[in-house]
Structure formats: C-alpha cells, structure tokens
C-alpha cells in the first residue's frame, strides 16, 4: 500500500488521512483501514503511549503544552490524540484543544489531532487505538492520549496506553473518597497541577493527601503509584514527570508487566469489538422485527408484564 510507505516516511498529510480512515464510519473506509492497520502492525515503532485524564478545569491541555514543550526540546517526537469533550448531543462540535497548545502545535516534531467525542464514552473508540498504531509506525517516540475525566471513560482510556496518568488540581484531595476505586487502580501516576503562586501550599497538601490515600492500593508486583507536583504555567516539575515515566516503563519491561499489559489490553479490545459487532447486529434485527413497539403496547395495556415482554423479544431476536 502506498499509504503505508508514506506513513512510515512520516508524511504529515498521509498520517492525517490514515487517521481519518480509521475514524470513518463508512464501510469502504473501514475495509481500507483494516487492511492498513494489518500492514502497519508488521512494522511497529517503539513508541510509549501515555494517557492523560482528569476532570475539566485542572489544566490538562496547558500541562500537555508545557510537558510536550519539554519533551520536544529534548528531541523527542511527540504525537497527541486529543479527545475533545465539547461535543453536543445534536449538531457538531467545537474542537478548541489547540488554542491551549500554542507552542507545541507549531513545532515540526509534533503531530496533534483532535477528535470529536461524538457522544461515545469519553470519546474513546476503536479509532483512537488505530490512530495510535499509525503514529507509532510513523516514528513518534511518545503518543499522548488526552481524555476528559468522566468516570467510566478513564478505564477505557487506560486500556489504550502503557502508562495512565491522572491530572488533578489543588484541593481535590478531599474528593479522593469520591473518586471511583477503578480510576485510582488504573492510574500509574498522579500529577497535581497548579503548584504555583497562591495555590502552592494547597497543592503540596493535596499531593500528601493522595500519597497517603494511595498507599492502600499498592499492588504486589507493580511499582508504587507516584504522586508528582507540577506547575504547567511555570513549567516546573517536567523533568520529574519524564523521569518517572521512563522509570515505570523500564521496571515494567524488566518484570514483564509491560508486555503482559499490552496482551491484556488486546484481549479487552477483541472482546469489545466482538461485543460491538454482536450488538450492532442485534440492534438491526430488533429494528427490522419491530418487536419492541409491539410488545410495549401490550405491556401498556396490561396484557402482559414487562418481564414477559423482555423474555419473548429476547427469544425471538436470538433465534434464527
């Protein structure tokens, strides 16, 4: 495939077109993209995939601007996939991530792609995974996947990356109780941003709160979860972040956790995809048979119970 060669050469337009293909909902595009990905995975790069998530307003994009600037100044090539949360239920979306990534978006060693979340869970779809494969083949050293923290989505996002990072703001320590257990389990690094100006004290206190709370989640064979203090605005703490990322990756590789994790993730995505295909098939069948409105009317008229309706429809849909 011509496109494959161009991607491996790192041609910007080719990478962009390929990502469009893997995000496309058009059947023919999906066929091409499947072919493309099976070619590309034969020529894997060496990139490390890092996930960044966190609640709105903690300065995720500003952090990525700051951390990314540091990485490119160290001659790393950086790809960023930003899942933009500002989607609406109807209509399109406004993708404003790049307004907060002014400096790195200019740099020739970056590739930044925003994706509208289209109402899916935190915007993560098969497309995001494939896009990271494309950037990997194109020779980017780090691939950042930025998502907004809306509960469940972090777990999906963490299944896409080698390291998962949660960015939080000063004063969020109190909410720690409320954070779902899942997230704290999936995250490898906690970054407390806004360690600057008036908020410095508060940020240190928050970091301490996280450290003590996280000591309960220690896994036997993994590294202790790391809590780091940074200021995206003042660009401080960035060396610590990259040092910690490299440390965790090295350790995980040494212990075999790195590959194990990628294998687990693969299982997860296969399962997801199979479920998706079955679900979309079932949805089509349901719609074509028109059972739901039919039985719903019966339930409304008290001719049968809802449970009976569900059972009948399920049996009818699955038989074929």
């Amino acid at each position, binding site marked *: 495939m011509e496109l494959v060669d161009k991607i491996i050469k790192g041609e*910007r*337009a080719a*990478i*962009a*077109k390929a*990502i*469009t293909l893997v*995000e*496309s*909902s*058009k059947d023919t*595009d999906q066929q091409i993209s499947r072919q493309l990905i099976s070619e590309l995975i034969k020529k894997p790069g060496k990139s490390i995939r890092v996930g960044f998530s966190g609640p709105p307003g903690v300065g995720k994009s*500003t952090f990525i601007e700051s951390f990314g600037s540091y990485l490119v100044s160290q001659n790393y090539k950086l790809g960023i996939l930003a899942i933009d949360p*500002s989607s*609406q239920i*109807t*209509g*399109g*979306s*406004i*993708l*404003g991530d*790049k*307004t*907060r*990534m*002014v400096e790195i*978006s*200019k740099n020739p060693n970056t*590739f*930044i*792609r*925003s994706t*509208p979340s289209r109402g899916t869970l935190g915007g993560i779809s098969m497309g995001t995974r494939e896009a990271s494969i494309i950037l990997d083949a194109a020779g980017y050293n780090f691939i950042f996947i930025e998502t907004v923290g809306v509960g469940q989505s972090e777990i999906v996002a963490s299944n896409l990356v080698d390291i998962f990072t949660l960015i939080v703001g000063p004063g969020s320590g109190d909410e720690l109780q409320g954070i779902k257990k899942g997230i704290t389990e999936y995250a490898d690094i906690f970054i407390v941003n806004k360690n600057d100006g008036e908020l410095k004290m508060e940020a240190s206190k928050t970091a301490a709160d996280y450290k003590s709370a996280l000591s309960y989640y220690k896994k036997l064979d993994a590294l202790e979860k790391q809590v780091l203090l940074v200021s995206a605005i003042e660009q401080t703490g960035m060396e610590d972040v990259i040092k910690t990322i490299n440390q965790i990756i090295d350790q995980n590789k040494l212990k075999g956790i790195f590959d194990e994790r990628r294998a687990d993730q693969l299982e997860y995505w296969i399962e997801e995809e199979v479920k998706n295909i079955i679900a979309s098939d079932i949805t089509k069948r349901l719609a074509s048979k028109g059972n739901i409105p039919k039985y719903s009317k019966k339930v409304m008229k008290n001719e049968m119970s809802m449970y009976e309706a569900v059972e009948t429809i399920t049996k009818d849909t699955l038989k074929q």
Partner: protein
Amino acid sequence: MTNNSNNGFNNWQKSFEKETKKNLSDANSETDEGIDIKPVYTKEDLENFSFVEKHSLPGQWPYTRGPKASMYTNRPWTIRQYAGFSTAEESNEFYKKNLESGQKGLSVAFDLPTHRGYDSDDDLVMGDVGKAGVAIDTVEDMKILFNNIPLDQMSVSMTMNGAVLPVLASFIVAGEEQGVDRSLLSGTIQNDILKEFMVRNTYIYPPEPSMKIVADIIEFTSKEMPKFNSISISGYHMQEAGADNVLELAYTLADGIEYVRAAMSKGLDVDDFAPRLSFFFAIGTDFFMEIAKLRAARTLWAKIMKDFGAKNERSLILRTHCQTSGVSLTEKDPYNNIIRTSYEALSAILGGTQSLHTNSFDEAIALPTDESARIARNTQLILQNETGVTKTVDPLAGSYFIENLTEELSKKAWDIITEIEELGGMTKAVKAGIPKLKIEESATKKQAKVDSGSRVVVGVNKYKNPKEPSVDVRVIDNNRVRDDQIKKIHAIKQSRNTKAVEKALTNLTNAAKDETNLLIPCIEAIKLRATVGEVSKALEQVYGRHFAKSLSVSGVYGKHFEGDKEFMKVESKIKEFENLNGRRPRVLVVKMGQDGHDRGAKIVATSFADMGFDVDMGPLFQSPKDVAKDAIENDVHAIGVSTLAAGHKTLVPELMKGLKEIDPKSKIIVFVGGIIPEQDYEFLYENNVSAIFGPGSNIIESAEKVIDLISDNLSKE
C-alpha cells in the same frame, strides 16, 4: 393613583387594545438586555427608584444629568475623530487636514504590531504593519506623528493598552523634544487592559503584571502629568464584540472598580487619581437605551466612588468619550451607515457625552477616505451648529420612559457588578473567562436574531438594494510601509549609542523584577532610541507573553432556529454529507497575524457547530504556516479565515503556500470572512480562495455555501 388618573389610564388602555387588537399585557417588547419595554410610560413609572433621584440637577449628585452644570450650553462636546494608518508621515498629514476642517482633538490609532509590542521588522507581523493604524517603532516616529502640532495646546487621545509603557514614554519624550514639559501634556491614554483580555485581545503580558503596569501609569500621571487622563475605561469594545448594554455598562464599571483598587494598592489616595479616570462607551442603534446607559453610568459611578471614600467632587464624576458603533455598520448598501451614525451620534449627545467620534460610512469595508472622514466629521458639526441640541442641558430629563429606563439599566448592571465583586473582582473573573463567555453568548444571540430576520437590518436582511453602489476605499500598500519602517529602524540602530541602550534595557528588566514604577526606566530607554519592540521584550523576559484560553458557547445560535426551514436544510445537507463520507464536514476557523478581534470567528465557530459541522478553533495570533500544519494534521475539509485588520492580502497567499508545502496535493478549500474591500475580491479569488463573506453575511446562507463547496470539491476527486 387617584381615581381620576386611574380612569384616564383605563380609557387609554381600552383605546389601545381596540386599535391594536391586542391585550396591553401582550404589547411589551423585550430588549437584548432582557428589559421589557412598555408601549406607554406614566407618572407611576417614576416610583420606587433606588438609583435615580427624580429631582436632581446637572452637575450635581448623583450626576445623572451630566458632569457639568452648563454642559453644551457653555461649550459643546469635543469632536474627536479616531484615526491613524500607514506611516507617521501620512497620518500627520491627515491629522493636520482634519484640524483645519473643524476637528478639535486628536485620537491616535496604532497598528497591531505596535499594540502587541513588536517592531515593524519582526517576522511575526508581516501582514499587519501600518494596516489598522499607524506604525510606531521609535520616538522618532512619534515626533513625526506630531510634527507641527503643538503638544501643549492639542489634547491627544491614544488607544494603547498592550504596549502602553513604550508608547506613553515615546509621547512624553516627543513632547520634551518639542520643548513641552510633561506637566503640560493633555489627553488620554486608554490603558485599559482588562477589556483586552475579555474582547479585543491586544494584550502582551498575563493579567497580574498587566494590572501592575496600569497602576504604574496611574501613579506616574497623577504625580507628573496633572492634565493627562491616566486611563480610559472602555466598554466600547465589549459592545463591538456583541455585549448588550447591561453587560457593557456593568463590566466597564467593574473594570473601573478594579483599577481604583490597583491604584490604591500603590498607596495613592483615591482623590489623587480619581479625577483623571475617564470612560469610553459605544453608542449603538438602540436610541433610547444608549441615552439611558450614559445617564445610568454616571449615576452608578458616583455611588461607587462615594463607597471608595472619595471626598473631592471631581472624583465622583464620570466623564466619557463615546464612539458610534462600528458593528452596526453594514457592507451592503453602505450609504445607510451615514444615517445610522447620525442617529447614534444624537443618542450620545442626548446622553451627555464629553467627546465623540462618529464613524465613516465605509468603515465596514476599509479605512476611511478623506471624503468619508469629512462626512463623518460634518455629522457632528451639523448637530452642533444646526439642530439646537446644545441649547438645553439634558433635555430628556423627566421623561417617564427615559428616567424609568435609566433606573432599570442601573438596577440590572448593579446586580452584575455585585456578582463580579462576589467572585473577587474583575481580574479574577477575567482569568476565569466568565465575562468573555457572557459577551460571546450575547453576540451569538444578536447574530441569530439578524440571520433569522427577527431583527431588521435595512439593506441587509430586508429592503435590499437591487443596485449595490460601489465605493472607493483607501488602499494601504502594506509592503511599502513595512519597508519604510524597516529602513528607519535600521538607520536609528546605526546611529544610537548601542551600549547605553542595552544598559537601559537591562535596567528596565531589573525594574520589572522589583516593584518599582516601570515608566521611569522606560522613558530613559526610549530617550536613548530603544524601540517599542525592544522595550516590550525587556519586560517579557520577566513577565512572559500571555496566551488566552479559549472557551466557546454552544447551542445558543441553534436555539433561535428551532423549526427554521433554512437552518434545517443545512442540517440535513450535513447529515447527508456524514452518511456519504463517514464523518461530519470539518472546518478550521482561524485568525492570522496580530488581529485579535475574534467575535466573528467565535460566532462562525459556534453557529457552524450548531448546524452540525465539526469546527476546529485555532489559537489567536497564528502564522499562516502554523495554520497550514494544524489544518493538515486534523484533515479538515475547509479553512475559514476571519480577517478584520486588512492583513488578508499578505496572509492568505502565505497560507496557500504553507498548505502546498506540507501537502502538494492538498484539497483543503479556503474561505475568507470579515472586512474585505470589494477591490480585494479578485486578488483573493486569483489566490484560490473559494468564497468571501463580508460583514452582514447571513451565517446560515454562508454555511450552506461552505457545505456545497466542500461536497463539490470531494466529488471532483
């Protein structure tokens, strides 16, 4: 109400309802500000006032009726036309001509590179030099600008906020080298940085150091320049960006409060500087509302300053400059703009402004020509000399309607001011982006009203002119101006004492690290012929450059069009497109160069998104090369360039080049919107621009054209 007057009202109501076939309760109309306007006002509407005092007099507390007892009966308002373009030499000629024709004060417009603290030879500002104002690089330019204009006699207003330090320093040094002591200089420097963060975006440094600079200037002028207004607290640009009158009024006064606080934090007594604070409001087409706004502004400011403990009466008085609304001007049927501007001018006068700029009718298209500037000036000369409006002070006082409206506006604005105070003041609110978002919401609503036809704009969405007149415009040869400026900079850099300049700049950087007043070392550097860019960079080393976070509203535009046929037509075209292409049409909306007016870009972004486009927003101040990278990486179908400062002839071809450099086969189409003289259309089309949308373009129609262009373009593949 006595029985008699009650009967009178009941009879009137009956007649009204008979004539209109409507219940009186259904006959109100709602303004943009959310104020219900009734068909008739009576004595009863003067009751329960908490701000307006019914029997006050002009020049007396609470100054609703005007800052002076005699107002225009003694001396009419100052005709102060804002102008500046190209080089200092050309602007100087233009000023002198205007002064000979009856203009009384000067008002200098600087070009965008000067605003943003860049010299004309900086690569970043290629397309902007001398375009929307005059280019000032060193004090030599400033001296040329005022050549043969004695600065001890002429009051000079300067619209400068970002690079306020080097520009004010240049003005002071230019005066001194003319032989005029700084204590004799009169005029105003805008120095209002908060509104830059909200709407105009010509800031340089982050909010906190910017506020320190504002305070430095207030401190310096209060001590050394007693005839100079240290700040012009401006609502103008808020209304231009789409704010309704309540938002404009409230945010302007809230900004004022913040500046008073900043100055007091320098240890100044409120009465030391408050008499030299001045204001600047926009006057739009809502005739009575604008009058009420100026009256309300004075009323509220007096109260605010009293709360600050001001004892000097002059501290309590709000003095203001006004300008007719630029955003109310239309590109279509442009002579209508003369009429709009006339009514707006009358509003400003009936509201009691101290000075006024009337816009030229061609300003929706380009910079004014000598002829259009003459008509604009004459609008005011006719008001002063022929209409008799100067003969009675505050002639609308006592009008049930005007007094009630003044009170209503005051109340609504006061609520917002209180809200801002609860947030911890305007600097904090601005940092959180709240005022910006509210203004954008208001702007989007207004645009939707025009596009849906529920608000009539004559010649645009109704009563269109079948034979559009063609209008001559002023053309600035941007490359020539830039070359001239670069030559001048080089000559000065050759002849000055470089060591001394470097030392002065180091002193300035050090002063920024301390808490000392920055204007003093700035004057030293400028005297030695340091450039505006060098001074700005010396401070940037300590403060950094500010980049704004961009928040967007959504759903506001679309809400106005529920069930609208045209809107639904575009929506369904987009759905069709998505089904066919596997994704929505994707458009990158950008501003390029130093032009920070982003109202248009924001409205296009939010309304296009409401119709179903995926819209990428680029950051402000992007170079064409950055835009090309951004567009290609996100594989957009089209780029929409918003241009209001005449940079398009340089920047658009650069963008086209940038796209081809990254992807020789790029199929991305480019459309341009904003202020573009018709004379430039051909040039842009020759450079492969696919569509051009001037001011007043209907957004739904524009969106339909864009989706059609994208579809056509794809089907060619």
